[in-house]
């Protein structure tokens, strides 16, 4: 039987108001259910570190960890473009960008450059 990949979109308004602990719990619950999370926006760097810590705490025979990548668009050099991007960041805050988090058993590698994410799977 063929198995497909499940991508679960998590809109910012679903986790934006949660505290860091609850955010991480929610993300890891989806990932441990063998789904790939497409998160609108990004985690704070402290939350990313916490996500890594919680992931390490939960690694066992079945759960090998996660792959994670955030994309925010390329670093602009043109002054107006930089201004626009900074304005978007200021207005949107953590809602700016897109984060992909998947179980390491399914997502082998996420390669990224500022503009694109390539996701390589194990299956």
């Amino acid at each position, binding site marked *: 039987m063929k198995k497909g990949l499940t991508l679960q979109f998590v809109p910012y308004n679903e986790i934006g108001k949660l505290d860091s602990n609850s955010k991480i719990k929610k993300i890891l619950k989806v990932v441990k259910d063998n789904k790939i999370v497409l998160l609108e926006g990004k985690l704070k760097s402290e939350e990313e570190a916490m996500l890594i810590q919680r992931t390490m705490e939960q690694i066992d025979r079945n759960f090998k*960890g996660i792959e994670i990548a955030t994309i925010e668009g390329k670093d602009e050099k043109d002054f107006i473009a930089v201004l626009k991007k900074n304005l978007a960041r200021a207005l949107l805050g953590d809602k700016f960008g897109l984060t992909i988090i998947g179980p390491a058993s399914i997502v082998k590698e996420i390669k990224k450059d500022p503009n694109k994410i390539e996701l390589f799977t194990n299956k």
Partner: protein
Amino acid sequence: MALKGFFNLLLSLFGKRKTIKLGFYGPVNAGKTSLANRISKDFTGEELGVVSKIPHETREIQIKEKVKIKKGNKQMDFNLIDTPGIATKIDYTDFIRHGLSQKESKERAKEATQGVIEAIKWLENVDCVLVVLDAAENPYNQVNITIIGNLAARKIPVLIVANKMDLKKSKIRSIESTFPQYNVVPVSALTGKNMELFYDELFRLVK
């Protein structure tokens, strides 16, 4: 003003000189322990830890205290804090592929997960950090960004060390363009290449 100068002179003569807690952070197998060993050997004659091609060789925080680093007329005491490599996944079967037994691999994986947790906890205990990256690997990955983001959030001074500059595949420019707001110093911890420049940058970091 003259009084302040006098007190500073007294402090430098008789006061306890501050020892800088220098953290070595980075992804797995970037050469953190090799660099810590190089520095420690240069100034104490002793190495700090064991290095290996098998990932997660360093699974506990290793500290070398009171390393007196000298460069020209500058001198400072450092505690070198070598941390386990940060990773988002650990699969014990990877260690089996490196020749370890299943039992050893499972044990190593368990210790490695604890090591990552400890490394992150230790971010609270360092004064400044060397982020050691493998110059032959793509620097634009989330582990590197997370480490540097966390250090920035804590306002901890950072020097990026582009290690393994001796490798043909090394791309120092790629690291510089990924982290344009940081100083990047290319070195080879293995051969000792560029270590003099590294010590200059280290003193600039902690001044």
